[in-house]
């Protein structure tokens, strides 16, 4: 399904010959060059075309350049019929090209029609290799050596990058491909697959069903592949019946077309460990990954704030980068959703033409500010907010605007008339917005003195105080109250460590808060060193205060905080070793750490520590020699506190020294007890390997009680639309403890990392769930290390229990194996499904409540030790 688009090519372009290096009058020259024909680029080009038409121009003032042979490359590569979503629902589309949620084909043809109807000046297979020059005179060098001149450049190239090519002669031949749409297209061919990653393996396995496939691996093994793929490919290579074979330590030296009729189309020279070798094949499919676009973007001169892979270039409110005249929009600018990208495409062209229009999301800001006690325009308010918060002052306006749009604004009013008035105003607004589904965010009105969060709640947001006061009350037994004022922030503890809140926050007089969701905040911290530094710093100060000197004022802690160090460890890294002399202790900020002791050549796990706990404190209190080796179980961040700082912190008369010392004594005994019972240690090891080190709520089955009735799975399906997110039988077992394949509700959920519509949320009680805005992209499934997320169609409705019991209609309770989805469900596409720990189901997790024998329980980190103790008996 591909449309040919009639390109209107400028006359001067047709006369051009040769490869000029400098801009000469013969070169095609435009006001705007848009690079990348994805949603952002299409929308930008459409706007430019529309403007040209309105101005009655003969020749297009713009060009849309695309390296691929069709528009919307990423979506072209989706599987057939995949549903494309139009999130966020409350944002209006502002584009000259249509877009609605629907199957891939319809979306692609919508855009294809748009390009055609507007006679958009698009050039396919025109990869831009290099951009030189300044605003007003950029020269874009294309893949075929041609140059294009433009006054402005709009980069809408997305994040996917172009596939890495073979890098040898013949790499561009027709039968040398860099992607595979449908493996069933080919039959009885000899195909060479180049690469050793997951996509190479998946392609090879699929093609080997009806073709002779050779996979060429430059290395000696498939070390980059996922376990499942690794096992599958090794099995296929060793299986004499399979049509798949492998050349290890082999790469391609050159490819030529075969002229002899009747023989395979390609002649390939291989470089093997034994020397060069010539082979013939019908087709080469190279899956060598993509060249990340960042290099190309940097070559233009655009700066990224840091080296992180997900960093976003800094942009002005008009999407202009630090290189004047070069604009960045779409996912490369940090906006991964189609609708946002299309809106930006429209707006950026208006901006370039000097029309400073308000962005499409402007009304959203107005709704958010509606309940505030000021009469100002949204833009003024935004500016004022930014000046009031020191940490955000240096942020660029665009980034700040985005943060506010994604945040909730909370305003506190005095109970009584004032509060009632504000509440009434919001109810009116809500009524106006009723038709919009989902409804946009509006100001949240609270009473002064109202609790914003309680200790023990799983917070996933971060609060910034714009005005007024907030009181933080630490939990018993200390009950210390801290007043926070304008520009200060709180809630960083849960944000960074994934732990539940440990204090109570109360709205003070006249307080106005910005509540920013975790994902937005993490994105911001990744792209802005200042924000990251500020939050890191306050986190350290508050941790020091909590552990050592609860009554010390922040000012006093400030100097100590500036001297302690923050370290990051990968899973498996050692923090300190048994036998070393320790001069510091550590506060575990996020992740998990195991302590182990050597005994008879084996490493015995004696303790498992979680975010918020101290590590190695014994070295500073009593025993200077480390008696355990501390290693990170999952990625961990620790704060190192040296002896000098420790002494300084605990010198105060009201320091928390005594409880600290009691902890030391207790832990020394606990660790020794674990050491003398090695079986508990290996149990602990098993639990950690199963991810319990980062779990907050995990299903544990006692095999000695489980009768295998699968009532847990059935209950899961029956309470969740006929789809079970629990696989009882799968999963690991050790000494009767079985950890089935079911969500662990991780402290820092891996699945949340990369969800484009931000559909994965954590409730206050800690359940991690997926809401209705899931677009079915599958990122969460790929990111989950425990394979607990499934991509499924909605299950059809079943007859009720009684009709099954009495008349045997339907398949009975539980998920119907291989159910056929209804057409409506199929049209919606597959969605991610995972355990939500039955949030919202009365009585709690159905799997546990319906286990007849008591074999299934759900436990949190506090009970893991009990689990080990139980095994001991």
């Amino acid at each position: 399904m591909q449309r040919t688009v009639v390109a209107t090519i400028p006359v001067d372009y047709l006369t051009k010959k040769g490869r000029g290096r400098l801009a000469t009058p013969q070169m095609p020259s435009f006001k705007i060059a848009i690079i990348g024909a994805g949603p952002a680029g299409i929308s930008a080009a459409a706007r430019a075309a529309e403007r040209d038409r309105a101005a009655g121009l003969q020749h297009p003032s713009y060009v849309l350049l695309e390296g691929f042979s069709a528009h919307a490359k990423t979506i072209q590569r989706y599987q057939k019929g995949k549903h494309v979503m139009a999130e966020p629902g409350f944002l209006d589309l502002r584009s000259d090209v249509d877009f609605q949620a629907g199957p891939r084909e319809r979306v692609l043809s919508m855009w294809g029609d748009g390009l055609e109807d507007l006679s958009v000046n698009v050039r396919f297979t025109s990869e831009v290799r290099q951009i030189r020059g300044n605003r007003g005179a950029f020269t874009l060098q294309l893949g075929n050596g041609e140059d294009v001149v433009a006054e402005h450049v709009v980069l809408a190239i997305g994040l996917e990058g172009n596939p890495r090519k073979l890098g040898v002669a013949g790499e561009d031949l027709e039968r040398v491909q860099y992607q595979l749409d449908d493996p069933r297209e080919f039959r009885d061919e000899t195909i060479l697959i180049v690469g050793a990653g997951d996509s190479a393996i998946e392609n090879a396995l699929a093609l080997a069903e009806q073709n002779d496939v050779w996979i060429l691996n430059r290395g000696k093994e498939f070390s980059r592949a996922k376990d499942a793929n690794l096992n599958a490919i090794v099995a296929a290579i060793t299986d004499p019946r399979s049509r798949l074979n492998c050349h290890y330590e082999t790469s391609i030296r050159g490819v030529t077309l075969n002229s002899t009729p009747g023989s395979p189309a390609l002649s390939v020279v291989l470089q093997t460990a034994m020397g060069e070798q010539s082979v013939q094949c019908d087709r080469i499919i190279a899956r060598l990954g993509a060249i990340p676009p960042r290099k190309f973007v940097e070559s233009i001169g655009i700066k990224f704030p840091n080296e992180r892979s997900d960093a976003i270039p800094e942009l002005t409110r008009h999407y202009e980068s630090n290189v004047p005249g070069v604009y960045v929009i779409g996912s490369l600018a940090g906006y991964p959703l189609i609708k946002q990208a299309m809106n930006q495409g429209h707006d950026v062209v208006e901006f370039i033409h000097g029309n400073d229009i308000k962005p499409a999301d402007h009304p959203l800001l107005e709704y958010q500010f509606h309940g505030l006690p000021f009469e100002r325009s949204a833009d003024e308010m935004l500016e004022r907010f930014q000046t009031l918060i020191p940490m955000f002052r240096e942020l660029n306006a665009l980034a700040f605007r985005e943060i506010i749009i994604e945040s909730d604004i909370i305003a506190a009013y005095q109970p009584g008339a004032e509060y009632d008035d504000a509440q009434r105003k919001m109810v009116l607004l809500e009524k106006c917005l009723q038709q919009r589904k989902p409804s946009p965010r509006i100001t949240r009105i609270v009473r002064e003195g109202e609790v914003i969060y309680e200790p023990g709640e799983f917070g996933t947001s971060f609060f910034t105080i714009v005005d007024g006061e907030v009181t933080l009350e630490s939990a018993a037994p200390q009950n210390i109250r801290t007043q926070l004022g304008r520009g200060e922030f709180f809630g960083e503890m849960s944000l960074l460590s994934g732990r539940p809140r440990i204090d109570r926050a109360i709205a003070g007089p006249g307080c106005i808060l910005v509540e920013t969701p975790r994902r937005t905040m993490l994105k911001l911290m990744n792209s802005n060193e200042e924000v990251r530094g500020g939050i890191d710093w306050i986190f350290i100060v508050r941790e020091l205060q909590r552990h050592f000197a609860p009554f010390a004022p922040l000012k006093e802690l400030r100097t100590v905080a500036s001297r302690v160090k923050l370290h990051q460890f990968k899973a498996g890294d050692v923090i300190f070793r048994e036998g070393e002399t320790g001069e510091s202790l550590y506060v575990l900020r996020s992740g998990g750490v195991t302590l182990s002791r050597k005994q008879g050549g084996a490493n015995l796990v004696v303790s498992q520590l979680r975010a918020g706990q101290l590590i190695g404190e014994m070295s500073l209190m009593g025993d200077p020699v480390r008696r355990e080796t501390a290693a990170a179980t999952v990625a961990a961040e620790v704060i190192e506190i040296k002896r000098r700082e420790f002494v300084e912190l605990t010198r105060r008369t009201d320091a928390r020294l005594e409880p600290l010392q009691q902890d030391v004594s207790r832990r020394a005994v606990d660790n020794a007890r674990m050491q003398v019972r090695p079986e508990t240690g290996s149990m602990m090891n098993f639990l950690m390997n199963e991810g319990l080190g980062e779990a907050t709520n995990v299903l544990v089955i006692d095999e000695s009680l489980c009768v295998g009735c699968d009532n847990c799975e059935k209950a899961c399906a029956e309470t969740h639309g006929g789809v079970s997110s629990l696989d009882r039988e799968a999963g690991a077992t050790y000494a009767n403890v079985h950890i089935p394949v079911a969500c662990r509700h991780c402290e820092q959920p891996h699945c949340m990392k990369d969800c484009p519509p931000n559909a994965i949320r954590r409730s206050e009680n800690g359940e991690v769930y997926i809401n209705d805005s899931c677009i079915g992209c599958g990122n969460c499934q790929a990111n989950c290390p425990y394979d607990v997320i499934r991509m499924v169609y909605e299950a059809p409705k079943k007859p009720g229990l009684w009709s099954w019991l009495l008349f045997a209609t339907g398949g009975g309770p539980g998920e119907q194996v291989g159910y056929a989805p209804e057409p409506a469900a199929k049209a919606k596409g597959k969605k991610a499904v995972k355990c939500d720990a039955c949030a919202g189901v009365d009585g709690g997790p159905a799997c546990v409540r319906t286990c007849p024998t008591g074999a299934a329980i759900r436990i949190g980190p506090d009970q893991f030790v009990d689990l080990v103790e139980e095994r001991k008996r």
Partner: protein
Amino acid sequence: MIHRGLLRYQGARYLWWALGVIAASVAVYLSQDSATQPPNGGTWQGYVLGTLGALLVAWLGLLAIRKRSYRSTAGTVQGWTSAHVYLGSALLIVATLHCGVQFGWNIHTFAYALMCIVIFSGFFGLYSYVRHPQLIASNREGGARSELFAELFELDQQTRVLAQRCAAGVAIAVGSSIERTTIGGGVSSQLFGNDRSFFIRGDGATSAVARNTDQQPVIDFVAARLPRAEKGAEAANLQQLIVFLCRRQTVLRRIRRDIRLRAWLKIWLYFHIPMTAALVIALVLHIVVTFMYW
């Protein structure tokens, strides 16, 4: 201790309930004046005990519904099951006291007999629920049944490939032993682990189908071939073949044992449930008949 079996649910709360029911029933029973007539179902005490028994049967049967009412917040299924076990046991005494140990060839005793069958099959079920999961888990050593099968298929393949490289007689014997290995089967095969495996003894000119129970005959057959190996390479192959066959034997034993244990874990329900249905019908008839002769 986190996990708690169904007998110890809430500190065996329903054991005390059951004992209470029994004590109350005994008290009612003893209050009968045996001077006028022996204790029986026709006295007011007999009617009280009968009503109690019938209500208990009805409630015990409701477990089937509660177990599948996945949204219900009326207790937990474990609690219901625990109560089902204890109160079901108490029913035996309640019903016996109700009839005053008077039996005959009639519908009433028939209902009583069905009830006993249901309760004793329940006892057996309870025994297997308590005992078998442990046995199943230790038999599988942490793996799932599917993993055992995966290992078996892998072994089958390796064994076959290796056997091809041995003398024709060995290849036929081993190949046929793999093809004619049987696992599971009908109810009795599953419950008693019957092994109807065969293999073809391909020694020389004659070939005969022989029993291959527990895979031992084929192992012996290959081992017998070893002293007559013609070349060093053949001996090495045969040695390895014996290793594979022994491992296959072990895996097959585990699979059979797993099937057998799980069959016992499930079989009683196929008895308990239909008998319960029969009991309910007989009980209704018993009540109707009682009132017809009133």
